[in-house]
């Protein structure tokens, strides 16, 4: 089942990629191949890979049936948690420059730790704040620019 989805996705990606290749503006001066040739070649290679996958699936069709329906890789309950984490990361990225690294990172880390490391309030709070502050100063000392945001230092 999973492999079938991968196969369909691969073919869709190849189709979209081919279409996008036609949109590349090209003025073929001094370069006989132009900017489109190599992408076209890759697109063909992806279709070959899809064909290989189909062949592999065909070869293993007996084994897949024997395995039965036991192997759904994604668990909806887990996916819900991960989706929330991903959205939370997105919010963190959106707030990073406005709030500054230290504030945004502490505020990002604490709820995540509270969820995945339940009950250890003090350890979680300390880890979140100390980590954010220490990495900020460490990277500033290394001349890496991080957003300062609302804090005066």
């Amino acid at each position: 089942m999973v492999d079938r989805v991968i196969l369909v996705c691969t073919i869709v990606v190849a189709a979209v990629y081919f279409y996008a290749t036609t949109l590349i503006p090209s003025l073929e001066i001094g370069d006989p191949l132009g900017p489109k040739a190599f992408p076209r070649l890759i697109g063909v290679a992806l279709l070959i890979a899809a064909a290989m996958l189909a062949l592999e699936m065909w070869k293993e069709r007996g084994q897949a049936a024997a395995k039965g329906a036991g192997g759904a890789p994604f668990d909806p309950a887990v996916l819900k948690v991960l989706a929330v984490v991903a959205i939370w990361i997105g919010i963190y990225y959106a707030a990073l420059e406005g709030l500054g690294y230290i504030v945004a990172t502490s505020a990002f880390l604490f709820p995540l730790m509270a969820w995945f490391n339940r009950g250890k309030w003090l350890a979680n709070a300390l880890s979140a704040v100390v980590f954010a502050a220490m990495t900020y100063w460490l990277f500033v000392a290394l001349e890496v620019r991080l957003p300062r945001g609302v804090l005066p230092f």
Partner: protein
Amino acid sequence: METLTHIMNGFGVALQPVNLWYTFLGCFLGTIIGVLPGIGPSATIALLIPVTYGMNPTSALIMMAGIFYGARYGGSTTAILINTPGEASSVMTAIDGYQMAKNGRAGAALAISAISSFIAGTIGVIGLTLFAVPLTAMALKFGPAEYFTLMFFAMTAVSSLAGKSPAKAMISTILGLMIATIGIDLQSGQPRFTMGVPELQDGIGFVIAVVGLFAIGEVFATMEEMTKGTRPEIIKLKGRIWLTRDEWNRSVKPILRGSVVGFVIGVLPGAGGTIASIMAYVWEKRVSKHPGQFGKGAVEGVAGPEAANNADTAGAMVPLLTLGIPGGGSTAVMLGAFIMYGIQPGPLLFQNRPDLVWGLVDSMYIGNLMLLILNIPLIGLFVRLLYIPGGILMPLILAISTIGIYAINGNPVELVFGLLFGVAGYVFRKVDIPLAPLILSLVLGGIMEQSFRQAMTISGGNPKVFVGSPICVTLVALSIVSIFLPVILKRIEAMGARAKENG
């Protein structure tokens, strides 16, 4: 003779106090992050790239190399103590290492891992020193067609050796090439696949892809395990980190054999460390007088694969430095780091910057020694990292990933790209699409297209140019052979599995 002078001058560079410090720092940080479960060398190097932003290229690369082998070494600690290798190449170490730990010999397993890493690493660097010069001489004869076929070979080798399904590995390789075509085409100046997003004009930086796929993706996978409650148990470290005379006597030959296997496999492109350590394990079991002990805590089963794994690290540097072509995922990340510092590894680098190349190679001798000195007394400290609850560690890795990506251009849009790669990395893991081929082709894609177009321009559009020289023909032939390698490899893996079962 001239080379000898360069090698000696290289020690002069490597022994400068500032470079000694960066070697130390690289080994130290590499080991620390490598110990963290699930974070392999590729992610470690990518995460630590921002640390080197303010440095001169020589020091930065010396530190990167330290991070690379430090991370390889750190992965074994995880394999021995929690039976979850940080990367595929430590899988064989986990078999007997974890059993030794369960039998109360965790200290000995860690010690033999440190000692065999040192010996194998040193043998590997000697090999690198010896092979580099003849290979660069050959590489100077390479034109665009030769480079194209060489990269083609590297990609077919990695596709056929990574993961369970060659088709999925090939899909991964081609996705990497596709991502590499995003951005302004250097030869014609035309934007390609940018969808009007200005951040895509310069293409997608490899750090974003690596941090997303390896670090953020791994965090998602670990959070899944935590949600399901399937995290493995850690074995407490008791007693001295040392081994008995008998254990040492049993380990010497496996270390030497593992070093040779590891180096040779490391030089060839492909899955590198994994194959090398499986072969070393199988070899040891074959020649052992008591094969029944394997799988129950045989010290040879740790010494051999560990040596192979570390000699492979040095071996993998050979094609990277001499040809500028990495043979796998983590060396591809190293190449990306080189390019970020404006340095193109390859034969010309040996001519133009002998100080840099030999300083780097010689620093690896020193780094291996440092790792040994560092690890025997400090291993207790590193092991503590394993006790940090995953619920604290995973969010921290997300924050470090954020710094890693943001520090490149200070652009939040690139953070979003990183997150998308993270989601993709998680999904790919779940559906068995290997990630290393994607990284390799993403890093090589740009150079590969350039060589392709240059070769075609030189030949006036005749594709025969790719079989126009003996080197090209050999490389094309090797590529075809490597496509059929999975069949041979399945046998080797079956041997490894049998070794594990019969144990």
